[in-house]
């Protein structure tokens, strides 16, 4: 919990003037450039930047730093991407169904033609990684993560990073079954109990379960956040941390939501289900903003 607490604490840095924010932003950009220009590159410093207030600030910086955080050597990525054999792929149909339904994941106002081109690239990245790594299995929600990498990095770089991510951070979610995913979800309640036994008791009593956190966990919140800036800010954080950080973060979000709903106490079975529903649906960018105050 130490890390997520320090993140929470950063949200208290507010009330500062715009000018002050701008100068801090400039200073941070200079520090990131400096870390990138060191020989060897100062990865621990980049991690700190990705975690601290404002994260990596711009997509241009992300294109340089995300490969470093995942230890992907940009020089070794082939110029030409392999072509994808869509017809002989067990996951193709499901991938296609999900990608076709992923309209919300693209910036509003993007021309249809451009978006359709990106959707084709999204399908190709996913299938390319799956074909190359037959031990990995597609899950609904995987595309929510891949689309973020595509939009920030472009197809070539995204393919390399997604492959690394899939064989590391996301590896447990890509087993033939969801047993390991359920196992990780089971960490949630003990974490919550450790931080706030009252919330734990309430959730046990309400039989809320942990299913509400499933999409948070396996999409790194990409499925539920509507503002792309929040998604990439969160990905800065997750890429800089241990692969289990998303479950700790889910616990933090849940604890925050409990605080904001603490006037509601379960008095009947019905009320419990209402609160449960409210909890699930009330997770918005506001909750995220309360935890991660965007820089400047």
């Amino acid at each position, binding site marked *: 919990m130490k890390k997520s607490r320090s993140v929470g604490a950063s949200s208290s840095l507010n009330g500062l003037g715009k000018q002050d924010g701008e100068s801090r932003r400039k200073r941070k950009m200079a520090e990131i450039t400096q870390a990138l220009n060191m020989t060897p590159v100062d990865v621990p410093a980049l991690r700190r930047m990705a975690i601290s207030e404002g994260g990596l600030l711009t997509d241009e910086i992300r294109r340089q730093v995300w490969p470093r955080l995942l230890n992907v050597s940009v020089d070794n990525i082939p110029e030409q991407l392999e072509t994808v054999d869509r017809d002989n792929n067990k996951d193709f149909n499901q991938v296609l169904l999900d990608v076709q339904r992923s309209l919300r994941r693209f910036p509003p106002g993007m021309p249809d033609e451009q978006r359709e081109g990106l959707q084709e690239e999204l399908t190709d990245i996913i299938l390319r990684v799956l074909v190359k790594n037959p031990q990995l299995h597609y899950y609904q929600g995987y595309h929510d993560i891949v689309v973020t990498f595509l939009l920030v990095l472009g197809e070539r770089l995204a393919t390399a990073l997604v492959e690394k991510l899939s064989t590391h951070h996301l590896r447990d979610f890509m087993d033939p079954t969801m047993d390991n995913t359920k196992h990780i979800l089971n960490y949630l309640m003990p974490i919550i109990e450790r931080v706030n036994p009252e919330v734990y008791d309430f959730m046990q009593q309400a039989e809320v379960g942990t*299913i509400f956190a499933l999409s948070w966990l396996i999409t790194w919140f990409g499925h539920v956040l509507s503002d792309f800036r929040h998604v990439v800010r969160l990905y800065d954080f997750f890429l800089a941390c241990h692969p289990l950080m998303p479950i700790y973060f889910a616990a933090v979000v849940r604890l925050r939501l409990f605080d904001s709903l603490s006037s509601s106490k379960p008095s009947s079975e019905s009320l419990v289900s209402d609160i449960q529903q409210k909890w699930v649906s009330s997770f918005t960018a506001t909750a995220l903003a309360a935890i991660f105050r965007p820089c400047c």
Partner: protein
Amino acid sequence: MDPQDDSFDFLFKIILIGDSNVGKTCLVQSFKTSQFCERQQNTIGVDFTVRTLSIEGRRVKMQVWDTAGQERFRTITQSYYRSAHGAMIAYDISRRATFDSLPRWIHELKQFGAANVLTALIGNKRDLEAEREVQFEEACKLAEAKGLLAAVETSARDAWSVEEAFVMMARRLLMQNDTSVADDHTHAVMLRSNSHTVSLTSASSADEKKPCAC
């Protein structure tokens, strides 16, 4: 929240299952908001929606559990079957494969659900008549053969028979729990006259079967 929403006479839990992309989430959205969302994304795990209906003066709270269609999520969604009072198994009338999966869904429900769970088949995307691959008669036959409550065709896009399908479930569940609600078959009339009629088998007595009039 509307304080009215908190009070109710009956609470029924309905599980909504079926293959990926048959329109389960759009059905729930149509029931909840009467709106169709063109940009609906896939569901991950389980989503909950609640709406309280008023049926013969009784406030019936319908808690709908909308599930992910992908096979790998079943180990997670199955744990929700047991406490469901009703089940709606959806398929897409324009995609044969989604209908062919129904026996497997019915089997899963038998395996993991309560013994008396009321089950209806929902043939969605009725608006795609030109691309129809499944005839309504087939769904009726399957519903009868498996002893299910009904087969209904819906269109979430046009809000066609969606409300009626949920009301039908609510009514049937109400009848099981409140003997003062008469089985006058009026709920069959509630379906639009230009829609397919529902095949009804009484949940309490099997001899009350109504033929599937198509």
